[in-house]
């Protein structure tokens, strides 16, 4: 698994033999993977493969039962400030009296701290991040008034505001229309061009080769890992999906070879 020289490229995120789960049986086992800086990796796999579990373990929402996580060479606890997490659907109180602009301002938490005043320049930057995701007109709306896709874009803007070096996204394109998806991809590629690292759970095999440069195929255990050209193969997908490949993804896998 992996390519020659993997260990010499600095990894933004390194997982060493991670196992984790809820209750009795582990949802993921012995996951060993490295995500180099400046790359955009897709985590794919069938339902129940543990993709969300893996992301939650990385961001510290779930404690691993075994293994280590290294963020830029350091343990997670010391490097939290370098990562940002966009969950599949934020588990927030949608009725909370908070405006879109205030949600994005939360991303500037590290600068503002507990007591800093929110100045005009903070508001301006938050508005800029909203503009990046195309949501600047909605700045003054209460968050519950937006559609699901719009809300996801706002939470992406909040993650951008955090200015992290490592972004973890859980199904960033779930439930959004094609135009929104294109907009989000553009934002993510821009982050990658700035040298940041992105890791996203992705559900659409047909677009893996187009959006991402690396892939981790997961089904409780890692099945394949590496650049799309090398790892995203028919054989690996068949192994992960148990031979139940939808025809489209088979075609995409061929295209990647």
């Amino acid at each position: 698994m992996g390519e020659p020289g993997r260990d010499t490229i600095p990894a933004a995120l390194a997982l060493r033999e991670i196992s984790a789960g809820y209750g009795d049986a582990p949802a993921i086992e012995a996951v060993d993977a490295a995500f180099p800086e400046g790359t955009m990796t897709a985590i794919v796999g069938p339902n129940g493969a543990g993709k969300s579990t893996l992301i939650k373990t990385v961001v510290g929402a779930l404690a691993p039962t075994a293994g280590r996580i290294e963020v830029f060479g350091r343990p997670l606890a010391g490097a939290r400030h370098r990562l940002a997490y966009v969950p599949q659907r934020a588990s927030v109180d949608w009725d909370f009296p908070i405006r879109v602009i205030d949600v994005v301002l939360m991303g500037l938490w590290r600068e503002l701290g507990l007591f800093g005043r929110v100045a005009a320049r903070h508001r301006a930057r938050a508005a800029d991040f909203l503009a990046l995701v195309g949501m600047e007109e909605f700045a003054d709306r209460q968050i519950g008034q937006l559609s699901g896709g719009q809300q996801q874009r706002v939470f992406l803007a909040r993650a951008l505001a955090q200015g992290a070096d490592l972004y973890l996204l859980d199904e960033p394109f779930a439930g959004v229309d094609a135009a929104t998806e294109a907009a989000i991809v553009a934002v993510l590629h821009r982050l990658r061009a700035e040298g940041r690292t992105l890791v996203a759970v992705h559900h659409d095999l047909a677009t893996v080769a187009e959006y991402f440069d690396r892939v981790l195929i997961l089904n409780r255990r890692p099945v394949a890992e590496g650049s799309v050209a090398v790892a995203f193969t028919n054989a690996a997908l068949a192994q992960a999906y148990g031979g139940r490949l939808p025809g489209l993804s088979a075609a995409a896998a061929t295209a990647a070879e």
Partner: protein
Amino acid sequence: MTAAGEFLGFTLVPMLIGTLAAVACAVPGVFLLLRREALLGDAISHAVLPGIVVAFLLTGRIATIPMLLGAAGAAVVAVLLIQFLIRAGRVEPGAAMGIVFTAMFAAGVLLLERSDTSGVHLDVEHALMGSLESLVWLEARGWSSLADPAALSGLPAELGRMALAAAAVALLAALAWRALVIATFDAGFAAVLGLPVAAIGLGLTLAAALAAVAAFDAVGSILVIAMFVCPPAAARLMTERLGPMLGWTLGFAVLAAVLGFVLAGYAPLWLGFPAALSAAGMIAVVSGAILGLAALVGPARRRAAA
């Protein structure tokens, strides 16, 4: 005693105490409402009874500090028991609260009945409705009494206590504001940022409990419950933004306290009725009426249309 002295001593001082109690409870009430813990005031009001009774039994007399400590202790026990039931017992939060506070209240009543000795007894009614009307400043002769140390020493102790509680609550709210907002709105995000979400929640609960305990003796549990819920709820219906919501909450709390107190004292006179009405009860009614009005005409009263 001059008219000014009468006003100062018999109206302004008790009204001020009621207003401070209202504010001290309404501020934490804002976050309790947003966290769906609006009934915490209800739970604490009932749960403190055994603590007060135990303090009374141990010290043999009705003294403020031991009873405050007993009430605070009971409040802490209640909060911990509720958490235990929810986490370890997997009981649903509403049921957990109901079980703990009714059981503790029942225990308190039982202790009370068994200890009814030597003519000094605690009154369950007093615990429910307080005695705000009686917290007067007899030594007030006129406005000059405000500068007279001898007269000032006769101020009811509840005034200083409530002022302290309200100030402490305001300070805590100012310090913890941003952390509270983030932890309440999006606990997952707060955890990823490294905020101690569970501790923040517990801290809010304990701060609310202490405000309630400080207020009980003066205004009784019914007012405490009303102030935790009604002004913040009415405020929520007036605005979509948190900052203004706090402003509306304070305004409504003060309005209810002042108007309620005035109505309780003077409405009977206007109606030709001999006795004053319960001030705490009237304040609770007014705060409920304000909420009712807000529910009818408040600009932010409707659910967000998704």
